C-alpha cells in the first residue's frame, strides 16, 4: 500500500514558485481502485508522478510498502517501476515500430513474472489484432494495447493518466472496462487520473484535488460497472 505524509511539491519556474502539492496525507490500500479528480493545476498529475517514482516531493514522505519513494536514487526508482508499476499514458505512447503483441512482449521481457502477452491482450479484448502495428489500430485499440502492456508484468500498481482523454465515448468505455477488469481479476491497485467525473463512479474512493490539496474524499458504497458509467 501507499502511504504519503505531508507531501508538498514546489516548482520553481523562472522567478516564480508554483505550489503543485501542499501538505498531502494519503493512504491507498491493496486492490483499491482510486480516481483522482480535479481541474488542471490541482496537483493530481504531480501526485501520480510521485507515486510512480517519476518525480520527488519537495518535502514530506512517500512509501510504497517498504520502498521509500522520496530518498531513492534513480536506479532504485527504475527498479521500482520495473517491478511493481504499470503505466497507461494519455497519448498511449506505444512503440510505433512494434506490433501490438511485440509492444506487450517488450515489457514482458523485462518483468520478473510476466503474464503471457497473448493473455494480457486477450484481457483487453484484442486477441484478433496481435500483429497490427500501432498505425493500423484505432485510438481505442492503441490504448487497450497500452493497458495490456501495463498489466502484462502483473504489476502491483496500475497508474493511468487520463487514459480516456484522447478517446471518444465508446472507445473510452472499452479502455475503462479493460482497466476495471485488471483491477478486479488481477487485484492490481489502480489509480486513475481524470477530468471526467463520470468515471468516478467506478472507483472505491474518489479523491478530489484542488489547489494542491485533497479537498474531499468520497467513498462509493456501490461501484458502477463500465456499462453503468455515462457521460
Amino acid at each position, binding site marked *: 500500500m501507499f502511504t504519503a505524509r505531508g507531501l508538498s511539491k514546489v516548482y520553481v519556474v523562472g522567478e516564480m514558485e508554483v505550489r503543485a502539492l501542499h501538505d498531502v496525507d494519503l493512504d491507498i490500500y491493496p486492490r483499491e481502485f482510486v480516481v483522482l479528480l480535479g481541474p488542471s493545476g490541482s496537483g493530481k498529475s504531480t501526485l501520480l508522478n510521485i507515486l510512480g517514482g517519476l518525480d520527488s516531493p519537495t518535502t514530506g514522505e512517500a512509501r510504497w510498502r517498504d520502498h521509500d519513494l522520496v530518498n531513492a536514487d534513480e536506479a532504485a526508482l*527504475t527498479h521500482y*517501476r520495473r517491478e511493481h508499476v504499470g503505466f497507461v*499514458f494519455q497519448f498511449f505512447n506505444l*512503440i510505433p*515500430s*512494434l506490433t501490438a503483441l511485440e509492444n506487450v512482449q*517488450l515489457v514482458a521481457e523485462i518483468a520478473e513474472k510476466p503474464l503471457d502477452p497473448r493473455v494480457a491482450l486477450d484481457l483487453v479484448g484484442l486477441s484478433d489484432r496481435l500483429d497490427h502495428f500501432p498505425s493500423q489500430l484505432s485510438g481505442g485499440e492503441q490504448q487497450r494495447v497500452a493497458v495490456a502492456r501495463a498489466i502484462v508484468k502483473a504489476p502491483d500498481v496500475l497508474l493511468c493518466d487520463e487514459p480516456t482523454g484522447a478517446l471518444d465515448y465508446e472507445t473510452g468505455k472499452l479502455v475503462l472496462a479493460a482497466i476495471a477488469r485488471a483491477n478486479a481479476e488481477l487485484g492490481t491497485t489502480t489509480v486513475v487520473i481524470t477530468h471526467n467525473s463520470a468515471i468516478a463512479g467506478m472507483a472505491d474512493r474518489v479523491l478530489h484535488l484542488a489547489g494542491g490539496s485533497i479537498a474531499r474524499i468520497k467513498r462509493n458504497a456501490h461501484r458502477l460497472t463500465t456499462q453503468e458509467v455515462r457521460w
Partner: protein
Amino acid sequence: MRLLDRKLAREIIAMRAQVLTIALVVAAGVAVFVAAISTYHSLRTAQSQFYDSSRFPDIFVTVKRAPLSIVPRLGAIPGVAAIEPRIVEDVIVDWPGSRLPVSARMISLPESGEGLPRLHFRRGAPPSSGATREIAIGEAFAEANNVPLGSELRAILNGRLETFRVTGIALSPEYVHAVRPGVSIPDDRFFVVAWIDRDAAEAAFDMEGAFNDAVVRLAPGADPDQVIEALDRLLEPYGSVGAIARRDQTSHRFLDDELNQQKVMSVTVPFIFFGVAAFLLNIALNRLVMAQREQIATLKALGFPSLPLGLHYLKLVAAIVSLGSILGVAGGYLFGHAMIASYHAFFRFPTLDFILTGWSIVVGVAISLAAASVGVLTAVRSVVALKPAVAMRPEAPIRFRRSIFEALLPGRSPRAKMIVRHIAGRPLQTALTTIGIAFAVPMVVLGLFWRDSVDHMMDVQFNMIERGNALVTFPQPVDSDILGDLVRLPGVMNVEGQRFVPVRLRAGQRSYLTSIIGLPRDGDLRVPRDLDLRPIEAAPDGITLSERLAERLGVTASDEITVEVMEGERRHIDVPVTAIVEEMLGMSSYMEIGVLNHLTGEGDVVSAAALYIEPSAIGPVSERFKSLPVISAATMKAYSMAMFLDKIAGLVLVSAAILTVFAIIIAVGVVYNSARIRYQERARELASLRVLGFTRAEVSRLLFTEFMVEIVIGIPFGLVLSRFVVDLIARFHSNESFQVPAVIEPRTYAAASIIVLLAGAASTYMLRRRVYALDLVAVLKSRD
C-alpha cells in the same frame, strides 16, 4: 525581425554541440582547401621570386672541353639572350668528421662575380676575383655539417690536396633541391655544391681558356628546342652530352614535380574533403531545419511571410559557416605553416614564407555557404510549401512494417526488431547516415595511407630493386678490375659493377636525355622488376625501360628505340624494348653492361659499384672508402635512408596527421549529428520506455545499437570507397621523379575503421548525457 534574431541566438546556444560539430566540418573543409592552395602558392611564389632575382637559366649543357673562343658563336644563336661558360667538376672533399667520402660539385664563377645564375648569399661573399684559395658553399651542406664562415675545406683537385677558406654560404636556383647526380637518395651531409673563382678553376682543372659546361638564358619568346638543336650541333665536336631545357634540369624537375603534385593536392584532396563536408553540411542543416517544422509552420500561420522565414534560417547558416570559416582559416593558416616548414628541409629558397592566399578563403567560404544554404533552403521550402494547418501537425508517423532482415536476427526479441525496423523502415535516413559514415572512412585513409605508400616505395626501391647496401661511384669509368679490389675489403660480401652512359633515347618524334644503367647478367644487387615485381633479367640484345620513361617515349615492350650514345664514339643503335619495369623513383633504363660497353667502345669498364657489406662492417668500410682516391662518392643505404625518411616523414606525416585530425572531425560531425537527430526523433519513445521501467543503460543501448549498426554497415562501403579514392589520388600525385604507389595496408584499413568506430563511440558518449537526462514527466503529457 529582432525577435526572430533573439530566437535564433537562443537556439544556437541550445544546439551548441550540433552547431559546433557542423561548424567544425566546415572548418575542416575550409582549412584543407586554404592550406593546400596557400602552400602551393607560397612555394610557387618562392620559386618564381628566386628564379627571377637570380636569373635562372633556361638551357643547360655539359661538354667535355670546349674553347672559350666558341662562346661568341653560341651567343649569336637566335634566341640566346645570355650565355655563361663555366667549369664544373665533381671532386672529393676531405671532410674530417664525415663517415663517408664527401663529394663536391665545383662550379666556376665569372670574374665579374655576377654569374648566371646569380647566387644568393646567406652569409659572407663570393670568392674575390683572382683569389684561388677562397670558396663559397651551398647552405644545405653548411647546415648539415655546421660549417661556419672562415672554415677550411680541403678538396682533392687533379690529385692534389688543396685547402680553401669558406667565404660565403650561398643558394643557387640550380640546387634548390641538391641531389648528387646518379644517387636516388639525397643526403646533404655528403654532397656539397661549391663555387670558386674562374681563375682558380682554370688552374685547378687545367681548363685555361676552356669550359665544360654552359648555361643559357633565352630571349623572350625564343623556342628552347631550336636553341638546343643549335647548341647540340655546335658543341657536338666538343663532347656535348646534349643540352637540356629547364624541365629536365634535376633540381628544377624535382621542384616542379613537387609543386605540380602540391597543385594537384590543392585541388583533389580539398575537393574530396570539401565535397564530403558540403554533403554533410547539407544533410545536417536540412535535418536540423526539418526538426523545426512545427515552429516554422506556426510562424507562418502567425503571418510571417516565407521570405523572411527563409532569411531567418539563412542567418543560422551564416552563423555556422562564419564560425566554421574563422576556425577553418585559422586551422588552414597553421596547417599551411606546418607544411611550409616541412618543405624547408627539401627546398632551399632565399625566402620561403607561408602566404595566405586571399581568394582561397573567399572561395572556400563561398562553397561552404552555398552547400549549407541549399540544405537549409530545401528544408524551409518543403515546410513553407505546406498549408500551415498541415505543417503544424507533426509529420505523419512512419508506417513501420516487418522487415525481411528480421529473419537474420538470432532471437525474437522485440528490442532487436525495433532496431532492425528503424533501420530498414527509414531507408533514406539510414542511407544518408551510412553514406556520411562511408565518406568519413576514406578521409581517414587518405590521411594514413601515405605511410603505407612510402613504406612500399622504400621496400620496392631499396629492398627489391636496389639490393646492395652501398654504392660507390668513380670519377670516370675505370677498369672492372676495381671490383676485385673492392670485394677483398674486409666485410664486403658482394660487389657488382654498374655502368652509367649518357644517352639520348629516341622514339619517333620523342626523345629523352638520360643515362643507361649497365648491369651484369644475373646480378643480385640491382634487380629491375616488372610491374608484378618479378625480377627481370637484362636481355643481352635489348633495353629495359621504367614504366614512366616508356610512357614519356610513347613506347611499349617490343617496340624499337634508338639509343644515341653521348660520349666516346657517339654511336647510334636501334634496340628493342625488351621489358617495362616498375620503378618508384626516377626514370631508369637498363642494358646488359657488356653490350653497353661495346656500344661506347671502351672495353670492360665500370662507372660505379654496388656492394653488399656485412652490416657490422659498414663503419670500417666507409672509413676505408674515404682513403681510396678512386672513389668520388659513396652512398650508404643505412645512413641515407634514415635521413631521407626523416625528411619525407616530416612532409608526409605533417599532412597525414592533419588530414587525419580533420577526418576525425568529419567522422564525429557525421555521426554526432545523425545520432543527435535520431535521438531527437526518438526522445519521446525512449522516455516512455524509461517510465515503463527500462533502465538508462537499456534505453541507451537501444538507441546506440542502431547507430552502431549504421556505422558497421557504413564502414565496409567506406573501405571500398577508400580503394578508389587512394587509386585516384596516387595517380594524380605520381610524376616523373616520384611514383606514389596506391598501397593500403590492412593496418590502415583497420586504423580507419577503428577511428570511425571511436568517433561513433565519442558521439554516443556525448549523447548519453541527454538520454540520462530524459524528462520522464513531460512524456506522460506530450502528444507526438
